[in-house]
């Protein structure tokens, strides 16, 4: 996710420092980025030569201190409150006072992530959609202590980068996941209750509602293990029974039917993959 966000930033003309604890992840991401920019030029979405220029604006580092002079730091570390708090706490001691901190969290509270970092007034929620380099929408939220000027500056930056910001309150899952997580669970429960087969549900949703993807196709793409993790983030804070992981979902994860990446989920992809 972080690599996709970095592509958005570099494409927008900003100097972009990509920080990760794992150097091999940075190298992998750089190769994908080069390919992506090259194909953007081929498709006419980027001017000739702009691919090399954008790539040249990106540097990789495993040294957090390299971010000291950044105007904006967008964190996209794994979804864990303590990890994000610790990171912002360390960044606070390293970065210049004006640096804005943004979190790409999908489910955690911006107020809680900012809590104790030392610059709670300059932390905002900035939730990109996957893949960030192709999806324009960014859900933005203020923590309880976020200053208006900081939020406005972050909002203007997102717009300037060619993305489309929408404002939401700092609530579990913002808009997108608050809609999607219970809906996906409802779909899984309908399958478990024998209401219809996954293919019939997908067909009904696409033909009847005009959604681009059927929900079973989408869950297979997201990963069933990720859906469990989303449920585990949501249910304890919302106590919404529809956000609790359905038993069928847990059984499928236990059986290794994790979705596309595992070759099978609600659909079987093994033949497609040539297995």
């Amino acid at each position, binding site marked *: 996710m972080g690599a996709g966000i970095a592509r958005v930033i570099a494409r927008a003309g900003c100097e972009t420092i990509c920080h990760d604890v794992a150097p091999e992840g940075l190298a992998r991401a750089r190769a994908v980025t080069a390919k992506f920019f090259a194909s953007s030029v081929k498709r006419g979405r980027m001017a000739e030569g702009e691919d090399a220029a954008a790539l040249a604006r990106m540097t990789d580092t495993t040294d957090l201190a390299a971010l000291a002079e950044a105007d904006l730091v967008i964190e996209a570390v794994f979804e864990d409150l303590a990890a994000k708090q610790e990171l912002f706490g360390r960044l606070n001691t390293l970065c210049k006072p004006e640096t804005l901190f943004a979190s790409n969290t999908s489910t955690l509270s911006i107020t809680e992530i900012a809590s104790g970092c030392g610059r709670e007034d300059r932390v905002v929620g900035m939730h990109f959609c996957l893949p960030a380099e192709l999806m324009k929408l960014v859900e933005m939220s203020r923590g309880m202590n976020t200053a208006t000027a900081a939020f406005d500056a972050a909002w203007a930056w997102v717009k300037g980068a060619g993305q489309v910001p929408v404002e939401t309150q700092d609530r579990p899952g913002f808009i997108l996941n608050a809609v999607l997580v219970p809906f996906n669970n409802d*779909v899984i429960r309908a399958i478990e209750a024998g209401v219809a087969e996954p293919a019939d549900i997908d067909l*009904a949703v696409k033909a009847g509602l005009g959604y681009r993807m059927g929900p079973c196709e989408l869950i297979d793409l997201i990963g069933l293990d990720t859906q469990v993790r989303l449920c585990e983030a949501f249910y304890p804070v919302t106590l919404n029974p529809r956000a609790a992981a359905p038993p069928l979902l847990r059984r499928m994860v236990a059986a290794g039917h994790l979705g596309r990446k595992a070759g099978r989920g609600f659909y079987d992809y093994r033949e497609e993959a040539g297995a």
Partner: protein
Amino acid sequence: MSDCEIVLHGESRSFPVRDGALAESRAGAPVLLHLGQVGEVAPEPRRAAVLIELDTECLSVHLGDYPGAERANTLGFARYRNGNDAPTNLVELVRPDGAEPEALAAARAFFESIGCQVAVCADRPGRIVDRLVRPKYNDALRFLDDGLATATAMDMTCRMGLGYPDGLIERTERGGLARHHEICAALQELTGNPAYAPARRAVVAMQRKARR
């Protein structure tokens, strides 16, 4: 295979206009189509399929929970439609327990021959689409009341972030909040599931309709 006999029971939500293959009804055709607000229908075991249009009710309202062999060719259906939007091409085909596979195949062939896409489901409240979307529409209406975001922001998130052709709020409002209430109330009665409890905005729409 689009040869059918049509029995009209008032206005049909699925086929408000009967043109093309449905323009003609032929007595004794293999497929018998009951359109509109269908009441009690006599068994017709010699037909390839007997098809009953459904609204919010389960097919078992027409057939009972144990239909018996003479009704094993009888299935339910509804063509999906958001409020008074034009009907979509989706036909939800309701297969009761014990339905003949031949009747299912005949029903599918019939609907496909008139250009519809067929999704098969069991005889459960809300079939596929309403079962899944109504709680989501209630969520969206409640989020609006709770100040999570503006309707515009929510609708934009659905279109740009989730790939929906329209936002949940615009869709629910276009389909009619009173109609949403009607469907939710039916599903809540049938399931007891509080996710179908109509959101405040839908209850208000219903109350305003009653006052007029």
